[in-house]
């Protein structure tokens, strides 16, 4: 088991000195090699929960187990090892770029975890290739490239650390549809080919439907659903989760209601087309 949440709550002092509980009684088990989507309305606690996964936050109640580490941490323990194994890509990650050249910035993470210059450079080159950055860009300043390219540099910076688990906080926010697809395809490839565990926080139900297998839904700090995406979209009380339906599911429901085509859980455009061809025979 990779990450486990046991009765975890996180509260903090908010406005007017009141205690505010961002997440409550979270129980969650994540195994290696999973692709999990975490969704819920703004303010439901998604970001708070995933920031426990690389020890940016420590639970105020309960325990989080990350590989062989336990949170809350005892004073003398080092957090570095956790941060190396669980890579967290923030929203609008391009804001974290600061080095003189793109290559140096991608090397920043690995160097902080103790790799030598040569080792870090090797990892950085590999990561740059993974995200599709051409070699002639590497000596340029990270501030002289397009927004989409900056995002790739930021993602490469995390991939170069070679984390076992990737936590992605809304990686497609602000990107156009083409850019979104490219980034998500990259993560999916890492999942399938490199066996990376992926935890995706997203609002986009179409992306969740297309790429994730398991979905965790949060509402007001608590988990209200944890299961396969097929189960999620056939839940009777789906509307209470305040989530949109993926377009593929929507059209399946529509065609079922209007012309009686049997409903099937399909999650990509190509699958829908193939299915329609099948039933038209």
């Amino acid at each position, binding site marked *: 088991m990779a990450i486990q949440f046991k009765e975890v709550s996180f509260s903090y002092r908010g406005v007017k000195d009141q205690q505010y509980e961002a997440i409550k009684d979270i129980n969650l088990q994540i195994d290696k090699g999973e692709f999990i989507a975490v969704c819920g309305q*703004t303010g439901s606690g998604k970001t708070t929960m995933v920031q426990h996964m690389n020890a940016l936050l420590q639970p105020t109640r309960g325990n989080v187990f990350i590989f062989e580490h336990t949170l809350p941490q005892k004073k003398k323990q080092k957090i570095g090892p956790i941060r190396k194994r669980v890579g967290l890509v923030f929203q609008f990650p391009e804001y974290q770029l600061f080095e003189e050249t793109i290559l140096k910035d991608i090397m920043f993470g690995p160097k902080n975890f103790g790799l030598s210059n040569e080792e870090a450079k090797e990892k950085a080159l590999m990561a740059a290739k993974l995200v599709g950055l051409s070699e002639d860009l590497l000596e340029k300043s990270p501030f002289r490239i397009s927004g989409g390219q900056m995002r790739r540099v930021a993602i490469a910076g995390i991939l170069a650390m070679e984390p076992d688990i990737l936590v992605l906080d809304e990686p497609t926010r*602000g990107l156009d549809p083409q850019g979104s697809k490219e980034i998500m395809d990259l993560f999916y490839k890492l999942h399938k080919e490199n066996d990376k565990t992926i935890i995706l926080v997203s609002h986009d139900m179409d992306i969740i439907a297309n790429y994730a297998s398991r979905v965790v839904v949060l509402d007001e700090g608590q988990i209200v659903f944890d299961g396969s995406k097929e189960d999620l979209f056939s839940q009777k009380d789906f509307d209470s989760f305040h989530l949109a339906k993926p377009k593929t599911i929507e059209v399946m429901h529509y065609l079922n209601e209007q012309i009686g085509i049997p409903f099937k859980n399909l999650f990509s455009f190509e699958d829908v087309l193939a299915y329609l061809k099948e039933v038209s025979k």
Partner: protein
Amino acid sequence: MIKIKDLYFSYDNRHEALKGISLNIEDGTWTAIVGHNGSGKSTLAKLLVGLIEPTKGEIHINDMLMTTNNLSQIRKHVGIVFQNPDNQFVGVTVKHDIAFGLENQQTPQPEMLELIDKYIKVVGMEGYLDKEPHQLSGGQKQRVAIAGALAMNQDIMIFDEATSMLDPEGTKEISDFIMELNTKYNKTLITITHDLEFARKADRVVVLSDGNIMFDGTPDEVFKNSSILKEIDLDIPFGLKLYETAFEDAQLKENKKLMDALWQYSLKK
């Protein structure tokens, strides 16, 4: 009425962002301008409010030729809401931000308070006048921006990717509101977006690519060119894409019942 004649714009004499655009926009209509990043759409928005000067060509707003000398006059008629909710929120509180444009126009104070009261209700944020921007969501900040623009009573309103940085709730808030502006307030609307689902709701779609107008017509007319649009990185709305891809398949095309249902689905919302 907006008349754009043969407009050119270059950044630093190197990158030509607009290469001879001509376009007329009638009063009270809703035009969506779409294009991939770098197609020139934001440049066009900035030109229409006079933030930059064209290298060549003319812009006429309500029969006034835009020059560097009459920008204050022009800005009485054209308002704009930008993409980043934080970077256009000037006031220390909601009240002060809505007031900002009115203060610049030297509106007398009693009138300012009336307008602020009126438009805060219109955007559904009554009770938020004393709130500070960091206490608001992205959608709320954009609503305040809209209130400010409405208070200035400009007949033309431009939305430059106003929902790109918002979450789905915020995007829906603002998109719904823009539709209201079109039906209830009879403003001339220009929405710049890469969300073709939303562009579909406009009266007219103008597709920009590499500084040129590629298509200009009603949404249905424009979206017929799905393969060319895909080439310039624009994906047409899901329902329509499904219909058109099915239409090009010999086997599926035969299934009349299916094609009808798909067409109906593509028209929804």
